[in-house]
């Protein structure tokens, strides 16, 4: 297998595997899948509502080594960034960092999509929450 050392490192020691409470309003969940290979990826972020900074990130990926490494790396990149900074993360950064070959680029795209989906989910929740909490107060 032509996996790079960095991919192998993330694959053998994935960072931040697990899940956060989906119902927590400060948690955004992104769930994406790649039909070519059937791989699925779940990525979650926990955001500090005051600062907008991502304080925690978790993932669980069912897929190839590159998809696992991409999502593992993504959780590391996410922590400490603001939500808006996180939106700037491009799959090409993941490709470069992990030295992914062209056939594995879609695995990094999956990770980028997962980040975007998690942020979209978080933003939708904060929008929903605002009027609701005003009502219940």
């Amino acid at each position, binding site marked *: 297998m032509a996996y790079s050392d960095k991919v192998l490192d993330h694959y053998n020691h994935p960072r931040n595997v697990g899940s956060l409470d989906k119902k927590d309003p400060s948690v955004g969940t992104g*769930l*994406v*899948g*790649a*039909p*070519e290979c*059937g791989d*699925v990826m*779940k990525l979650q972020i926990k955001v500090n509502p005051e600062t907008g900074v991502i304080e925690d990130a978790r993932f*669980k990926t*069912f897929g190839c080594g590159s998809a696992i490494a991409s999502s593992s790396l993504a959780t590391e990149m996410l922590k400490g960034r603001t939500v808006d900074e996180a939106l700037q993360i491009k799959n090409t950064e993941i490709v470069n960092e992990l030295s992914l070959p062209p056939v594995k680029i879609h695995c990094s*795209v*999956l990770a980028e*999509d997962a980040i975007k989906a998690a942020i979209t989910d978080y933003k939708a929740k904060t929008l929903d929450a605002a009027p609701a909490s005003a009502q219940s107060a």
Partner: protein
Amino acid sequence: MASHHDCWQCGTPDAGSLFCRYCNSLQAPTPDYYVFLGLPRRLAVDPAILQKQFYAMSRMLHPDRYTRRSEQEKRYSLEASSILNDAYRVLRDPIARAEYVLREAGFEIGEQRSKDVPPELLEEVFELNMALDELRAGDSEVLPQLQESRHNFKLMLARIDSVLEEHFQRHDGQQDVASRRAVLEQIRNVLHRRRYISNLVSEVDKQLSSRNA
């Protein structure tokens, strides 16, 4: 399709697709399954008609009939028999048939971004993978859950197949190329979704049967 050729034997122009209509010698077979079988280019294929045509042509092309013919015809009969078998195998299966028509029409199958998977399906797919993981780790309590997911995905496949059936009819009813292509595009998307689900079902089957083995 290009069935307009001169007979290699007698030189008659526009000889016909399988046998020369003048000297009756076997011609180079066309690789196009529909043209080869003499069927209209429709996605909805009547299995009975297809089968009848297959048997009739198998008899016509049987190697026994060519033992005393020229080398050229022997070779053509072998080629034609293999095309016939491929054509039958592909056209009798609605999925393989649709994929064949799509590929012939220049569609790529298998290029798709992750957004195209419906979110409500993803949830279920993820749960299924979780359960498969637990099963691999030796937890058999997830078995009923797996059986149920398998059942659900099977139902989805059945529903997809009837949707495909409708698309086929609609495709065949279109007169112009552009509208046909539009339907083909929809069919391609349905096929992607179908493949995704059927991969899952076979994965579950594999896990379940490796446990029983």
